């Protein structure tokens, strides 16, 4: 009996392990392959969920021509971390309520996840999250960038976003005066 039960448990474990290995392979614009849990991908990305449901996943690597390997690696990393770090109930509620609920502060691990990224990697990840319809990742990355903007001068913000100043000196002065009320204590 004992032995049989042990066998049964082992069988179960093996089945679960097989299910865990149920992955999809994604191919970056520069041809690198990444494996990500099918379950996590479907849960976190509306675009990948659609592709999985629609059967347009390529076993040899689904082409994501808009996403570079570094950004895709971060996407996959995020999916795996997300799958491991957050209880499913919290996850479900956060993904469903995204459009109606106020912004939910990033979790500690999400904060750490985006903190280690370079400027360029962060911006690439925002675009990748947007492209893949990953609302929570978009939320977390946009929040990080908005935090980076705090206390920065218009010049510094232009530098971060690579934006050209298209105001004349006179226009800037005029707007500054019009908005003087907001900068009173700064």
């Amino acid at each position, binding site marked *: 009996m004992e032995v049989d039960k042990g066998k049964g448990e082992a069988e179960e474990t093996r089945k679960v392990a097989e299910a865990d290995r149920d992955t999809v392979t994604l191919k970056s614009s520069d041809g690198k392959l990444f494996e990500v849990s099918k379950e996590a991908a479907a849960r976190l990305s509306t675009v990948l969920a659609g592709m999985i449901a629609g059967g347009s996943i390529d076993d040899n690597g689904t082409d994501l021509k808009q996403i570079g390997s570094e950004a895709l690696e971060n996407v996959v990393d995020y999916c795996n971390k997300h799958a491991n770090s957050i209880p499913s109930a919290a996850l479900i509620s956060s993904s469903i309520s995204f459009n109606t609920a106020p912004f939910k502060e990033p979790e500690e691990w999400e904060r750490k996840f985006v903190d280690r990224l370079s400027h360029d990697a962060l911006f690439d990840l*925002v675009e990748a999250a947007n492209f893949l319809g990953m609302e929570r990742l978009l939320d977390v990355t946009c929040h990080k960038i908005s935090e980076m903007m705090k206390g920065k001068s218009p010049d510094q913000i232009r530098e971060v976003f690579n934006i050209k100043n298209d105001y004349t000196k006179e226009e*800037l002065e005029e707007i500054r005066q019009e908005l003087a009320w907001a900068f009173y204590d700064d």
Partner: protein
Amino acid sequence: MDQLVEEILLRLPIDTPAHLVGVALVCRRWRRLVSGAGFRRRLRAFHHSPPMLGFLCNTLCNNPNTYITHLTRFVPTMTSSCSAHAGDHPGGWRADDARHGRVLLSRRAASGLELMVWDPTTDHLQELPALPWPTYSWKAAVLCASAACDHLDCHRGGPFRVVYIGVGDDGAFSCIYSSDAAVWSKPVSIELRRFSYTKSVQSVLVGKALYFMFHENNESSIDLQLLDAIRANPENAADPSAWLNQGHAQTRGRTTRKDLARR
């Protein structure tokens, strides 16, 4: 990328206005983005409750050189005040109403009642012409006059109206000041007898109807009466002249507190 910029700017903390306002200085595109109606609507939905920058408080100013006068004081509730100018209004001014980014100030002068609309954000002040009809009791409300406005940022130079209800020797009347026409409308008499306004209760705008609340003193009970000062149909709300003539001064009869809660 515009959509992503919007996502990022939405997440700037709104308790410090300088963050969001500052992005207008970055480039024309960003300025257009953050001042657009769509962005402001999303901003409000995103952050749910707007931050409280401060409140207005009517108090008395005891100046030893003169005498006790009214004083409207702006009390900031944040370290970064919303306005360099949103300070005190001495000189007998009192805040009577506030709505849609504007504050209605009043004071008693030798010549009669003076009314002024103040934008606390920009400190723009607009004096209203004198009311030609003297009253001994009155109540007034200020509101945005643009039918298409979502009232998220309508204070800046947009049209406004001041609805005034007064009781003079010839009875009670109502009239409306329109900033577009820059004149008071002709008074319309309204049926109100023996009442006193509850000064502490602000008027309430429900849809397109503006309600004032006042007491009627009988021997023992106090009833609440509502005056439906404005009842405009959506199709003519855009036309001030039609709006003014649109039966804006009908009494709603006696209403109990319960009725008010139901509205």
